[in-house]
């Protein structure tokens, strides 16, 4: 899989867009249904535009952190402040709107719609965006597919793509709405080495060149090595922070 030289499409991050917000996590506690603490973070900050690798053994609470940061989980206590907005205090529709407009999500197993073409997946948000934004979303999605080396294959259904290609479609989907923050959950775990390296390089470059904040949960030391900061979590607590 040749690493693609993903660079910013016109009209994207290079042009002044919504600034990547600072992140402040404070007095955070996430509990499961039985009240057991899954994640407890006294204080964590992230500079806008910084890239962060979250590492740790399985079950340590890495994914939980990502879900809290994306507003998919509401913490039992504490604040999750993105650029001045505490999403822990937002209603469900407001958190959905926040994800829609400010976050790009990338999953380990892509979570693409198999029967849709690559472009249909990358521009998925156009299906539920206001009518006036749909064309721009599609254009940007097509631009990202192009830059990720899949421009010519936009009409093919996802089922015909390799793992590496699928994850790049997912990256294009995450970037289509031009979000200032990208959250990725084990983005390279389902890929072979070459594909993983290529994708990692793409992600790091996209974050750096676009001034985007990137938080990637990963077991992959190669990917972690490409990011500016590393956070180690064990038993629901931060045990090491390369910035600290």
């Amino acid at each position, binding site marked *: 899989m040749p690493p693609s030289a993903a660079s910013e499409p016109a009209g994207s991050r290079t042009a002044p867009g919504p600034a990547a917000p600072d992140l402040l996590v404070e007095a955070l506690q996430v509990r499961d249904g039985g009240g057991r603490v899954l994640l407890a973070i006294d204080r964590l900050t992230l500079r806008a535009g910084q890239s962060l690798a979250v590492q740790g053994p399985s079950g340590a609470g890495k994914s939980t952190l990502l879900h809290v940061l994306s507003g*998919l989980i509401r913490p039992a206590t504490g604040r999750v402040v993105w650029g001045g907005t505490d999403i822990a205090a937002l209603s469900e529709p407001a958190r959905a709107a926040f*994800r829609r407009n400010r*976050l790009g999500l990338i999953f380990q197993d892509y*979570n693409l*719609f*198999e*029967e849709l073409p690559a472009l*249909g997946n990358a521009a998925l948000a156009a*299906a*539920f965006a206001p009518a006036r934004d749909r064309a721009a979303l599609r254009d940007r999605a097509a631009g990202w597919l192009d830059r990720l080396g899949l421009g010519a294959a936009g009409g093919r259904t996802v089922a015909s793509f390799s793992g590496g290609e699928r994850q790049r479609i997912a990256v294009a989907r995450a970037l289509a709405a031009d979000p200032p923050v990208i959250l990725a959950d084990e983005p390279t775990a389902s890929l072979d080495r070459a594909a993983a390296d290529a994708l990692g390089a793409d992600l790091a470059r996209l974050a750096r060149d676009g001034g985007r904040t990137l938080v990637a949960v990963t077991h992959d030391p190669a990917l972690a090595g490409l990011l500016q900061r590393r956070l180690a979590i064990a038993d629901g607590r931060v045990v090491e922070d390369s910035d600290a």
Partner: protein
Amino acid sequence: MREIWAGLSPDLQDALIALALLAPGLAAGALVLRGLAPFGLVRAMLRRFAWVNLLFVLLIAVSVGLGVGLVAQERGLRQGSARAAEGFDLIVAAPGSEVTVMLAAVYLQPSDMALLTGAQYDEIATAEGVAFAAPIAFGDSVDGAPVVGTTPDFVTHLAGDLAEGSIFATEAEAVAGAFAPVGPGDSFTPAHGHGAAAEGEAHAGFSYTVTGRMAPTGSPWDRAVLVPAESVWSVHGLANGHAPGDDRIGPPYDPVYMPGTPAVLVRATELWGNYALKSRFTRSDMMAFFPGTVLAQLHGLMGEVRAAMSALATLTQVLVTLSVLIGLVILVRLIARSLAVLRALGAPVRFVFAVVWSYSAALILTGAAAGLVLGLGAARALAALITVRTDVLVTARLGWSELHLVAGFVSLTLILALLPAWAAIRRPVLADLRN
């Protein structure tokens, strides 16, 4: 309001009823889909579980088809039997059961019947206002098809001009019904009686030659062979209705030489004449009745059966609606992960709701449309079968009552489809995302 409604044509009324039935479902859809365009996504999701969806559509189609077929078939049968009786204005027979005489004379279902005498026939035939009075003499058969003795007038009255050939002019000639087992040029010896008990040798030595064929009438008469009443009497060793040496075919008959007939078809010269003649010949020694009245009464009685059938069809639809609902809830579990991805990516709840509803609506509408086609097909197949078995031409067409049934079903299920959509948006996003 009522006056305006009464002033509309029946078709327009039915169309408006169908629209009114559809309206709640369509309104629900318009509300759900307002400003959203989930169709591409829904199409992809439908393709993803094509086989399950196909099964689901088939379930709906078969049940809708059953309801539609049942209703269409019942109406087809009713109209077919009524059409078969249309040519029989007024029947006069010896007192007895009107139903028995109607079955024998109109539907050619043979039974033992008392005879009207030659004198009675003569009184009917010569009464003022009678255009013609045709004796209908049955009892013989050929290859299972009834051989009926009557007059040339009756042949023309029943089927209009012949499709080919000419009407019988001698006692040895016959006219075949459109689908009779014998045709022009054929010769045959009639058997005495019908079916297994028919005596093939009873009329040995006598044969008819078919000289013409009637156009189709859509009645059991299409399979019959019509012969002069004279020959039926002759073959049975009776006087032939005319004085010896008189070789004429057809009326007037000489009352002295006319052996009698089980039924007489009477046609009046005037529109109102049939009603006057009915009153006139309703008396102690004969009865006069309109087969249409008897049939309408029978159909009226069967109206309760029809109501029961409609109730059954509706109940089936309700049961199917419930299974569709349960099926949709199960389908929602199938697509739960896709829905969770949408939610995770920030799709508004209303959009996810619309996706699930559109998904259900696509299955319901496809199933209902397929059901209409299926029901019509089934009704047509059944109608063809009944036509072959009874010679009553039964045609099954889609009518408004079926369309109303389907419109009601579609509307109700489209509204009920809001429930699985509502259930879908209440599912836990993270749990579904992990599955």
